[in-house]
């Protein structure tokens, strides 16, 4: 919990400084808007974190968001499918792709980085190809207004993506921190060999994390499509995998696996979005956007590592 606490303090500090410099930070409109983007980015970041806990990585997130978004637009507006079917279809495609990642990684022992990097290239290409590289929009959402309000509306004054993120986080929190499956994920991520010796089917556990991550990504894909209201296949979701990884790492996940928590990832996501907001509100040139993010992630992880090295030394020097 110490780790999450440190990053939480940083989040509070940044909010306070930004709010002090520009009171508009705490305006209702700004807060709601931020809640919306935290919801959008949070859902797939949880998936990214899940995969990182198993000592893997998923680089295909951004492309998968583009592909699922494009499939959703086309199935609704061009093929005129009923929206529940379209949603199921998109979810199924995402899960199938996630399963393929998991299968290649656990069955053929391919490196997650390579498998999902190929995914990144493949899905982007497919999205552009099926749309013939054209931007496609929802228009006036004739026939799927319900879905639009589910994805882009409000509940009790809160943006739907944020509400969904809360619900998913609660479920994920229980799964990761309270269930057998969650324990197996951590064990397989920390020490796959020992987990195997304890009778855990580590291949299945690891493969399933890719399926779950892809499902969350597919869900994000639907929400993002409605957020932007149209999908440009060549730019939609670009670099989002890196947001997910950055948020997870900032929130305490280790790329070595076996570490991380839902609350940590959520704080990481919030921190990244606050940073973006800060760049806007404080009049920092928006070209520095990525640079600010990179610097903060670097400092956060460095501080954590220094702290860890110190406490490791302390343990080593303890009289036995």
């Amino acid at each position: 919990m110490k780790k999450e606490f440190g990053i939480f303090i940083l989040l509070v500090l940044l909010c306070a400084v930004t709010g002090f410099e520009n009171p508009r930070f705490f305006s209702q409109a700004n807060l709601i808007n931020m809640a919306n983007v935290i919801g959008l980015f949070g859902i797939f970041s949880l998936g990214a974190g899940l995969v990182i806990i198993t000592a893997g990585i998923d680089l295909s997130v951004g492309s998968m968001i583009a592909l699922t978004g494009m499939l959703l637009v086309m199935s609704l507006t061009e093929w005129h499918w009923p929206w529940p079917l379209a949603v199921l279809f998109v979810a199924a495609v995402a899960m199938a792709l996630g399963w393929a990642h998991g299968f290649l990684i656990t069955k053929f022992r391919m490196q997650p980085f390579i498998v999902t990097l190929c995914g990144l290239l493949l899905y982007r290409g497919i999205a552009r190809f099926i749309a013939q590289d054209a931007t496609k929009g929802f228009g006036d959402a004739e026939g799927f207004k319900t879905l639009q309000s589910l994805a882009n509306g409000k509940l009790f004054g809160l943006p739907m993506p944020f509400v969904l993120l809360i619900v998913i986080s609660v479920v994920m929190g229980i799964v990761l921190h309270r269930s057998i499956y969650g324990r197996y994920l951590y064990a397989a991520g920390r020490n796959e060999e020992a987990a195997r010796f304890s009778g855990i089917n580590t291949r299945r556990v690891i493969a399933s994390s890719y399926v779950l991550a892809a499902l969350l990504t597919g869900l994000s894909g639907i929400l993002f499509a409605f957020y932007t209201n149209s999908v440009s296949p060549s730019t939609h979701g670009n670099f989002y995998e890196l947001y997910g990884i950055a948020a997870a790492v900032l929130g305490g996940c280790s790329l070595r696996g076996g570490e991380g928590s839902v609350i940590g990832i959520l704080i990481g996501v919030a921190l990244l979005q606050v940073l973006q907001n800060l760049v806007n509100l404080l009049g920092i040139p928006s070209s520095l956007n990525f640079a600010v993010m990179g610097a903060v992630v670097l400092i956060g992880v460095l501080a954590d590592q220094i702290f860890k090295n110190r406490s490791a030394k302390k343990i080593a020097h303890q009289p036995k």
Partner: protein
Amino acid sequence: MTAPLLEMRGISKRFPGVVALDSVSLHVAPGEVVAICGENGAGKSTLMKILGGVHQPDAGEILLDGRPVKIQGVTDAMRFGIAFIHQELNVLDNLDVAANVFLGREPKNAFGLINSKKIHADTGPFLKRLGLQISTRERLDKLSIAHQQMVEIAKALSLNARLIIMDEPTSSLTLSETNRLLELVRELAAQGVSIIYISHRLGEIDECADRVVVLRDGKNAGELTEAEATHDKLVNLMVGREIKSFYVKSGAQKTPGFFKARNVRSPLYPKKSVSFAAARGEILGFAGLVGAGRSEMAKTIVGLDAAPEKEIVLDGKTVSVNTPRDAIERGIYLVPENRRTEGLVVEMSVRENVTLPSLKNFSRLGLIQRGRECKAARQQIDSLKIKTPTVETRVLNLSGGTQQKVVLGKWLAMSPRVMIFDEPTRGIDVGAKAEIYRIMRALAEQGTVILMISSDMEEILNVSDRIAVMHEGEITGVLDREDCNEQNVMQLATGKKIPVAKAAYEN
């Protein structure tokens, strides 16, 4: 006799708790092949590590060409012309032959780049000297293990090695490759290179050594010349260490044949198979020299390695054990050799480790019930007297003996029917050892089949009710309690059949 090239006089080395070497002496003449043999833990590797500069002796001196020298590290050893060929090859298999031979001392050309013409030209003659018909441009991963080993020898020669130490060099070679290596050892000796040859295989020693030096318990046990060295004489010298006896006959009810394993083929020895039967209530020891395939057999039994023909019979019923989960469900548990990498997830807490294989018992609808889980962990902490500050302490902060008890706790939280212990007390202090023996005995008396793999002669002789001895992937024989002595174990472990030994499997 020629003046010795190497002389080690009165070398002693103490490690915390053990005297690894006690005034050991060794001399090697130019062009002489000296074999060193001894049981597991007799001090062979410590002696060689002193020659390689890995350890410094506490007492004694090393003389090269009659002059005392200090060997502080690998570079020193290299400078003195001492080279090592380890059991585990030390080559970079992504580079070619010449690059491996000249690794770390590449000659440069006018542009400061590697002068590859020169290294290829210079490597050729060494290969020729070894009678090796391969190109210097061949990548190492394209070569057989035997050829890779030859490349290491070529490297040693290119460093002007005058003494080459070969540690179990034939353990992964085929028969014809072994013969070729032995021939080569003779050829090198004829060229004036001295060889120290360490092997468990007495046949090979017979073949190539001029002299055999036997170590026992960290002391010189004796020497035999080529003419004197027979299998029996060697084994006689190797055994005969003082072994404290603390075997207590157990009054447990025994049910012979309660557990049977048949046709167990491990990936290490795919052409050989192991079959044996063990009684309920007994501790069946598995003795053998390192590399006999005992751990691999254990892993195959519990389904960690696939073995389609394997047959496991438990209490008269044939059961299928294809995955570790199957084994656990049948009550067949393995306490593995490497507790930090295989036995435990050391970054996790005592609680999480203890319940890892049995989580389902402490959960409902897939959710862990923390209270019951804690209770189960506490139960094991109490009954095994696990010395941990709290149930939440991370295992990596505990001592070796305590960690081993956590591994035991993992399995004892369920109901074991067969438990395989692989080197159960390695790296554990004396007090914790005695406790682990007590726990094993108590389990046996409660009706669990205990299989104990151990390379510690004292342990194997004192804890086992019967001993199955393995040699190169097979059980050479099983000793009943009254025949359990060091002599018999060593005979079987070095591959010699003896009349008192029983067959491992009877229908």
